[in-house]
């Protein structure tokens, strides 16, 4: 019984070390999470702040959200809600169309790269990664230069006068989204067992029916997550939009930036919170789709 004292003591020390270790692990994890999410949390909290000043907490209110929908708050602040809704609509329109176009083209590019051996395949593959790698600002400026050259040419040759507008923004978004979609879809096609398509043909399906009945359903989760990625990227994009947008064709991020230049009101917090919520929902949806398919 006496000799048991020493192992007991050792046991206590072990336990203590383990507790400290566990506490340390938690502390580091929480610290990291705080660093990542504290700014966002503050943004969300202050979107409910009754004070006009971001720094002081004056109690809970839904005024800023109300102002987005009603235009005028009890305190009489006009956040030019018609413009916000225009910008939001522009964002959704650009995001929607560019997503659809980029998804179709990106999927075709992915299929071509995975399934065919053709001249210039390696070059295409390298080019595909370019829009992902090069800085947004380079991409934005090059698009701007391209558009102005093109418009100048059209004007001198055909006498048609074109200006930057929502369509140019859309083309810009399509160019970078094709790459993201193609890369996402391609990894899905690479995982696809070629024997499955052979099995379909063996059972009497021609190329077209094999594609609709076997290939497409199996790579569809990849196409969908590519599309959701493209949509979020389009909604979030600031730099490329900034360079390719014309007067009166702003998207939500560009509009919010313009508002900040005038005054930082809690209404911006409210808009940002709503944008955060929308992005979160899309990402969750995409994750859920991917999980279901594997």
């Amino acid at each position, binding site marked *: 019984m006496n000799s048991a004292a020493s192992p007991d003591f050792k046991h206590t020390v072990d336990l203590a070390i383990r507790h400290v270790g566990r506490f340390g692990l938690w502390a580091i994890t929480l610290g990291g999470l705080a660093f990542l999410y504290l700014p966002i949390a503050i943004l969300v909290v202050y979107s409910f702040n009754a004070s006009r000043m971001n720094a002081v907490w004056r109690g809970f209110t839904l005024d800023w959200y109300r102002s987005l929908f009603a235009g005028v708050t009890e305190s009489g602040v006009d956040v030019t809600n018609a413009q916000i809704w225009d910008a939001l609509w522009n964002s959704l329109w650009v995001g929607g169309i560019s997503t659809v176009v980029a998804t179709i083209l990106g999927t075709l590019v992915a299929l071509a790269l995975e399934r065919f051996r053709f001249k210039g395949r390696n070059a295409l593959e390298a080019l595909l990664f370019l829009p992902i790698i090069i800085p947004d600002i380079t991409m934005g400026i090059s698009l701007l230069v391209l558009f102005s050259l093109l418009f100048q040419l059209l004007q001198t040759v055909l006498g048609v006068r074109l200006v930057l507008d929502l369509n140019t923004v859309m083309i810009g978004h399509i160019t970078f989204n094709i790459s993201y979609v193609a890369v996402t879809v391609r990894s899905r096609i690479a995982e696809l*067992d070629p*024997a*499955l398509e*052979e*099995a*379909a*043909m*063996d*059972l*009497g*399906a*021609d190329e077209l*029916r094999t594609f609709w*009945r*076997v290939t497409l*359903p*199996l790579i569809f989760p990849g196409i969908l997550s590519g599309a959701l990625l493209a949509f979020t990227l389009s909604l979030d994009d600031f730099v490329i939009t900034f360079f390719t947008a014309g007067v009166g064709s702003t998207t939500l991020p560009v509009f919010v930036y313009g508002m900040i230049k005038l005054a930082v009101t809690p209404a911006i917090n409210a808009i940002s919170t709503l944008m955060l919520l929308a992005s979160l929902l899309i990402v969750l949806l995409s994750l859920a789709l991917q999980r279901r398919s594997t």
Partner: protein
Amino acid sequence: MNHAIELVNVSKTFRGQNNREFRAIEQLNLQIHDGEFFSLLGPSGCGKTTLLRMIAGFETPTAGEVVIHGEAMRDRPAFHRPVNTVFQNYALFPHLTVAENVAFGLEMDNLPKAQIRSRVGDVLALVKLNGLENRRPRQLSGGQQQRVALARALVKKPQVLLFDEPLGALDLKLRKAMQLELKHMQQQIGITFVYVTHDQEEALTMSNRIAVMSDGHILQVGTPTDIYEEPNCRFVADFIGESNFLIGQVIEQSMGGIVALIDGELTLSVPYEPEIPVGKIITLVIRPEKVTIHPDTSGENHGLRGTVKDVVYIGTDTRFVIQLTSRSELIVRRQNIHHGNLDTFTLGEQVQIRVAPNSIRVLEEGSLSPDIVQDTINTPPKSV
């Protein structure tokens, strides 16, 4: 007899990276009869899958013709060929249920819904999968997936069914059971099965005829008995079952038999009809189970003798390694019919060996090391 499949001078060359050519199948001719269970047997990489894929229509022959039921298949895509395939890893559609997988081929033929439903039901009953209609492939065991793959091909009622190592992924017990089941099913429905395997026991168990392949060529075609009892080359004898190879030189031919000198030490008389020049190097193939060993009590100067070099008990059999000449050993297999009632032999003991001359197979191939050839010329053989 009708040919279900005929391969005429078929070659397949793959062009790999940096344009290097690789000949997977070379100038191959083969006829597969209607209604037979035919196996393509050979080691991994010998071209079995390539051959099967050319029949199915997934590869185009570089030269030659694939003929199915009298019709040349050139330019006929896989989806228009009267054959169906059971794939190596089953290739079941993961997004479809068992019933949908099986119905797929019938839907491609645009059959009416009611007919599809009844045929799917019938074939699922045939492969004993009733009740699993609504499962997805990943919710099935390996054996069940194998049955779905079989049902999916069978439901099309093809004239020829192709199998690419379909049992490779199953455990030994299940594999043995499925071998017999497939064989019985083939006898029952009477269609042609072309079966690719690298497992010689599997091929012997199931087939009416076997083609033994090596390096893109067919070495021998025949019934399991032909292939085992009368291999036409050393590769076949070595690949199918176990063999002893004794290399020797013909020193005499007379009356439908030859006398061969083994390793310049030992003479053997074996029956052999074809004309063969004296001096020709030959290989004698002796199956281990066709040899018996006996205590060397006779004292006669007659028959073969050797010394026991090794004894290995392996349950059903005991294997003896006998030193026959200074260069050659002979493996002998004895079935353990009785227990404790058999002759025992000790290491180093001299024993008598008996083998019926007509169970020794003569192959006109092989090479001797030069010093033995010298010996043969200079010194007369010992005795027999």
